[in-house]
């Protein structure tokens, strides 16, 4: 088997396709590294200044009073950019960079101030962008599109070419079992693709890791290792496909045509076409609808509580306290229902995306890209994880406010209104601060299904290639 693999390898190393592949991959990987070095420092800077803004806001509000802290909220909560974004862009430009935790729909209203809520502002990077549409060059693109094409170009004539030139008969005349011959060819092609790919990847990593702005820690290197293994698995998939078609088809030209058509349909068209088909099934509420529902809720609550607050007598102390309670109830209820509305919209959007992402798993390129995303810590799943972090932080923050207020004997413990809450300043260190984290465990869970799916594809195609090759007549 190693004999055959070695022969294949030598054959390939001298060929034109090997040279072209090496040049192409090197150029792409260098571009990728350059782009990352150009953009990443800016992203990190924006993140750090965002975090500093959030902490300053908390400190200054905490120094003022607990009420101020409770009313103003934590401010904009930033998502930590991944240092491995060059591996998978994951549509990050279409994902918000954070969540807003400060929302003022209305200002002072007779002693009432609206409370903060978690809002999910959308990003529309393309609304004003008149630049031409281009795909970002990340590893996902290089491996998903270019490397898969190259893998097909390396295998389309592996068997049919030998049959055409008659060397296959010669080879099988020796006492070589067919499966050994097939494995030899497979390994030979795999190694000859791995060489230029590994070279380009190493150059890419060398450029990125030697730059002073980017720091990759041990965990990041571990993730990179996994990403490389996935890339190899994905390459195997296309090599197996190439061998399968090459064994089934008599002429290598026909084999190439078949392979290219399969490649185009599954890699280029399936993801986007399926996305627009499945995306059309459901439509989240439009911004007009959202505004309408928001103001409708506000009006209802106004009629229910705000007027009671306005009209409530202020004569006795009991009346005053009752009035404060009404005011506080109005503010907290308003914030709660607006936050629920925001969450409803977000949930609709997420469920639409989930459905689309499940449907496009039909295409191997989507599987590999979402695998890359989960190991690089970018993309949609990562965004959901970030949202979870934010929501648990919001709960923590609110509990902190309640507990601190309870500890103050002078407070009336009526939330939502200035006179009802503690006026004392809070120690800024005690206030919970938001820090975004990336957990590897969760990443692996989302990736496991994809990984299994990819392995399944490879096994099915390889056994298909074996069956086809065994039954072939030389």
């Amino acid at each position, binding site marked *: 088997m190693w004999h055959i693999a070695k022969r294949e390898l030598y054959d390939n190393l001298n*060929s*034109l*396709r090997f040279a*072209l592949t090496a040049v*192409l991959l090197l*150029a*792409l990987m260098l*571009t990728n590294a*350059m*782009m990352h070095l150009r953009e990443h420092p800016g992203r990190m800077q924006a993140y750090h200044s965002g975090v500093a803004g959030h902490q300053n806001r908390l400190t200054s509000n905490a120094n003022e009073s607990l009420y101020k802290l409770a009313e103003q909220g934590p401010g904009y909560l930033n998502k930590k950019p991944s240092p491995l974004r060059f591996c998978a862009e994951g*549509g990050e*430009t*279409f994902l918000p960079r954070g969540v807003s935790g400060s929302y003022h729909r209305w200002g002072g209203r007779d002693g009432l101030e609206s409370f903060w809520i978690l809002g999910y502002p*959308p*990003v*529309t*990077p*393309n*609304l*004003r*962008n*008149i*630049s*031409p*549409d*281009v*795909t*970002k*060059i990340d590893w996902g693109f290089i491996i998903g*599109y*270019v490397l898969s*094409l190259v893998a097909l170009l390396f295998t389309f004539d592996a068997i049919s070419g030998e049959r055409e030139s008659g060397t296959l008969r010669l080879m099988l005349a020796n006492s070589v079992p067919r499966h050994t011959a097939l494995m030899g060819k497979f390994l030979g092609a795999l190694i000859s693709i791995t060489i230029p790919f590994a070279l380009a990847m190493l150059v890419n990593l060398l450029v990125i890791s030697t730059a002073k702005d980017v720091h990759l820690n041990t965990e990041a290197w571990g993730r990179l290792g996994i990403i490389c293994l996935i890339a190899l698995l994905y390459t195997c998939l296309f090599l197996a496909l190439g061998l399968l078609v090459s064994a089934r088809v008599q002429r290598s*030209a*026909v084999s190439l*045509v*078949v392979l*290219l058509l399969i490649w*185009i*349909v599954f890699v*280029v*068209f399936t*993801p*986007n*076409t399926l*996305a*627009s*088909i499945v*995306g*059309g099934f459901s*439509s*989240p*509420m*439009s911004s*007009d609808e959202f505004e309408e529902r928001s103001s409708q809720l506000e009006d209802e609550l106004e009629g229910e509580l705000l007027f009671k607050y306005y009209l409530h007598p202020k004569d006795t102390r009991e009346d005053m306290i009752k009035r404060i309670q009404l005011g506080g109830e109005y503010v907290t209820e308003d914030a709660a229902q607006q936050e629920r509305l925001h969450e409803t919209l977000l949930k*609709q*959007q997420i469920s*639409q*995306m989930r459905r*689309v992402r499940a449907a496009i798993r039909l295409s191997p390129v989507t599987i590999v890209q979402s695998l890359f995303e989960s190991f690089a810590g970018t993309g*949609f799943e990562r965004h959901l994880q970030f949202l979870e972090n934010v929501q648990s932080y919001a709960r923590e923050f609110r509990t902190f406010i309640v507990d601190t207020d309870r500890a103050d004997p002078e407070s009336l413990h009526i939330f939502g209104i200035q006179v009802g809450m503690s006026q004392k300043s809070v120690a800024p260190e005690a206030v919970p601060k938001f820090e975004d984290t990336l957990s590897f465990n969760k990443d692996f869970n989302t990736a496991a299904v994809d990984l299994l799916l990819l392995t399944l594809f490879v096994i099915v195609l390889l056994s298909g290639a074996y069956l086809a090759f065994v039954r072939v007549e030389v």
Partner: protein
Amino acid sequence: MLTTLIRRELLDNLMTFRFAAAVFIMLLLVVANTVVLIKDYEKRLVDYNTALKTHRQQLREDITYSSGELKVDRPPNPLSIFNVGFDKRLGNEVTVSHRYVPTLWDAGKHGSTNSFMGMFAAIDVVFIFEAILSLLALIFAYDALAGEYERGTLRLVLTHAVRRGYILLAKYMSAMLCLLVPLLMSLLLAVILLTTATSISLNTDDFLRIGGIVLTSVVYLSVFYLIGMLISVATRRTGTALMLSMFAWGFLVLVYPNVILAVVPRSEAPKARAASAYNQIEQMWEEFDRERKQFLKNDAFPGENTDFNLMGSGGYSSGSFHRSSSILRYFYIKPVFMKRLKEDAESRVPHAQNYYGFLGPRVTDTAEKTWLIRKPALEEILVQPTNVEGVWLKLSPVGLYDAATQAWAGTDLKGIRDFFEAAREYRQQMVDHFYNTKVFESQQWFTGDKGTPDWDSLPQFAFQRVDVDTNAKRALTDVCLLLMINIALFIIIFLIFVKSEV
């Protein structure tokens, strides 16, 4: 002689597996995608109609002129099915007001929003042609000459008294005829699907535009066939030719359009230009604000209160400047909305009318004055860098083809900007109407006490896409460039082939 050659080549090509596969795949993809695209178009059309209705409704609810927001909406372009261009992603509703001159960058978006869905690229008919037709052309071409060299049939043919140019021409024409079959069949099916969809009505101009797209597609196809032929004649071996063709395809279609913009550095010069223009605009508005304050100081009403102590129960009156320096937008907005006037307000109303009668024209004039600065500055800082990027992209035939078809479909940047040009004209009409009917100094400007504003007497906004001549003019350069590439390639192939030894 030529016809014999063509017939031979044609039969050779038509009977192949690759031809059948080409036709099948093209039809499948084009039909599937056209159905999806038509659905998408219909959805956008519904969104557009809903937006029209909502905006009209909202305008009715505004009880004063100054708080009214007149919005105009851009209808989706039915030809975006062929090349979506900027049709889906740029803003499709813009507020028309006397306060500023609307541009593409002031526009918002109506319709259901899920910004996450922006991740998925839109596939249109032109993209299918771009990717698959070019591949098919290369697959047809790689063995056109190399195959004959290898098999030795070329020597056989040349023993007859046939000119070499004829052989080339015959090969080219027959292959193009073959490639036209999947192209025309799939386009015809797409057009049939379009005409059967009830929501889409195509007029004669639209069919001419589609004709333009077909023409451009043929020229594009021919470029790739000639590239394949060039490789074939230069390498003389089918294996090498095939490899080179595939890599050429990958490079031109997949790699170059995505890589080039990342490699080309963007100039930093516009930033300084933007800052200076913004400063100029800011100064103009400050000047306006000084004049405004001066007026308040000098008028008969004591104090600088712009309420004139009129507000009864309910309403608002707040003036503020809105700024966004990245798009050089700066304007003063003062919506006044008084549900009821105070009981004794009668005597003070003329003061308010006097003030708003002064303010409205001043805001309008300042907006127009700043527009004179904003327009060239926007052109320089936002449009020109994009044009440079466009030139880089057009170094590959794919970019040329994309630009040309966008121009035909009217979904290119110019086509979208036509809408905003119309919105600006409409703004002028609106301002004229305000002047003519003395809206600024009317009571309806700030109060709903004396009846609601009569928006219906305004001229209606109507946007017509430019006629097909303009589309043709916009597409002409790119189509000509594609043609020139064709001719140059053919000449090179001819020269190599004539000089080559058989």
